[in-house]
């Protein structure tokens, strides 16, 4: 990574931390410790399942919310505060700015996820009193959640490169919802004939497939995640994020910033 991208990424991370983004960890810790302690009292025999399901769902949703709300402001905030002009007046290219912002935000989310993962494993230790072999798959689910963040960050950045923050948030969240229903969309495309079928298939393949990145229920039951799925999901995320970031760069290159 070139050093200019590194600087922009580091500053984006620093700014997010200064904006108290990591405060969400307090809410997460309270939620998880509360669930770990309470669930044994109010339910039967699902302590471990709740810790994994609730923990990973919270990691995912908290992260997606952060990715959307920070991602949509990455460009517009710099324009509003006029700091973008200072940055671009230096030997920094527009594409470097976009890519640096992307890495900065994903870096913030990786750190956030890492700290939350420690919380999930501590809660697991609390309810099960020991770690088991199947807990390894929880790490894989966390990795998939990070992949999910990469796509959401890329999409938020893409929309924010040409739209207002509010509309960018709406577009990104809508794609997150549609992406989680990708399997249904594909099923719908299969049963639709003619031009409608073609359009439905095109949409089904164009929207991000978040359902393939969600293995929370599976790992909660201790099921293994196939190595091939890990590989394909990694490649898919890389390609999809690259596609969205490239789109953002192309639009931002042509954008009139005056």
């Amino acid at each position, binding site marked *: 990574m070139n050093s200019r991208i590194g600087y922009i990424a580091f500053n984006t991370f620093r700014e997010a931390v200064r904006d108290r983004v990591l405060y969400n960890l307090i809410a997460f810790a309270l939620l998880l410790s509360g669930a770990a302690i309470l*669930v044994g009292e*109010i*339910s*039967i*025999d*699902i302590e471990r*399942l*709740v810790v*994994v*399901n*609730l923990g990973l*769902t919270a990691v*995912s*949703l908290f992260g997606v919310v952060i990715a959307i709300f920070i991602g949509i402001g990455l460009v517009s905030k710099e324009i509003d505060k006029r700091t973008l002009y200072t940055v671009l007046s230096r030997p920094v290219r527009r594409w470097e700015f976009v890519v640096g912002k992307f890495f900065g935000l994903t870096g913030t989310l990786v750190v956030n996820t890492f700290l939350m993962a420690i919380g999930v494993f501590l809660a697991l230790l609390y309810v099960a009193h020991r770690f088991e072999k199947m807990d390894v798959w929880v790490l894989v689910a966390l990795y998939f959640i990070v992949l999910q963040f990469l796509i959401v960050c890329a999409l938020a950045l893409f929309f924010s490169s040409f739209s207002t923050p509010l509309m960018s948030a709406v577009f990104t969240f809508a794609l*997150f*919802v549609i992406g*989680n*229903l990708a399997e*249904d969309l594909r099923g719908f495309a299969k049963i639709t004939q003619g031009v409608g079928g073609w359009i439905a298939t095109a949409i089904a393949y164009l929207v991000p497939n*978040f*359902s393939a990145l*969600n293995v*929370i*229920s599976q790992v*909660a*039951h201790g099921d293994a995640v196939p190595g091939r799925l890990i590989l394909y999901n990694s490649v898919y995320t890389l390609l999809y994020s690259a596609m969205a970031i490239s789109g953002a760069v192309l639009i931002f290159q042509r954008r009139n910033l005056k």
Partner: protein
Amino acid sequence: MRMIATRRVNLVATSVLLFSMAGGMATLSAIDHLRRGSVAQEALYLRSSKVLRRMSLGYTGLLADIYWTRAVQYFGEQHHSGSGDFRLLAPLLEVTTELDPRLVPAYQFGANFLAPKPPNGAGLPGAALSLMKYGIEHNPDQWRLYYNLGFLYYTEFKDFAKAADVFAQGAKLPVTNEFMPILAARMAQHAGEFDTARMLWFTTYQSTKEARIRQNAVDHLLALQVDEDVTRLEQVVEKYHQQTGRFPAGMGDLERAGFIHGTPADPKGRPYKLTRDGRIEVQDPKSIFFITKGLPPGATPPQPPRENPPASK
């Protein structure tokens, strides 16, 4: 002067905050009181698991856990109130298991909530049967589910052939319980009622870590001991009656005649009573739950006190 004004604002704001908080909670409590019954039942209640699955955005595991907890709470609340109205229990369990077909505790304990007659359950053995069959269909490698289905056939339907078949299927699994093949054989022979029941309750005790279910199994094991003791002692009294033409005046008569050794006592250590008409009774009928024998004439089998939710089987 300015500091005094700031302090005054702080004081007023704090007072309003505390008052509003307390008032809000009190009002909410009054609203809950007004809508008691409907609130708890309608909350989280959506019948279509397909709709729920889509609404959950893929986070179905957590939703299933919430529905299962809701089912446990609902059963506990209805059991505790003694209303006997469990109409939402089966749909709640259905939604739970359709959202997460691999949630084994929902089948295991759900069937135990559904099958027994009120007040100990919903009195819906048919629904329990469907739930267990759905559970086995989706978790064919879980011996506990075969055990629970066999238990259901034995206790609720008295269908020994089907119970034997299900226990035998469970016994063939790579990971199973040592009692499964024995239970299958006993069911097939339809023999040794007390021993079979004891083995079933012992397996129930062994197969769960849940304290309430374990206590329930212990209570049933103690009750079985009393039922068996009373049956055996009454047979002895009958034999004595046939030999001497009169009922024994006390346990001493039976001991002197060589029928028993020492004074027989119930599992709590209290000696059994021998009545004038040759019946055996426990000294404190309320101390051992679920007993069907050794009770004074007209007494009903004692039940454990109703618990706060989540309730035991």
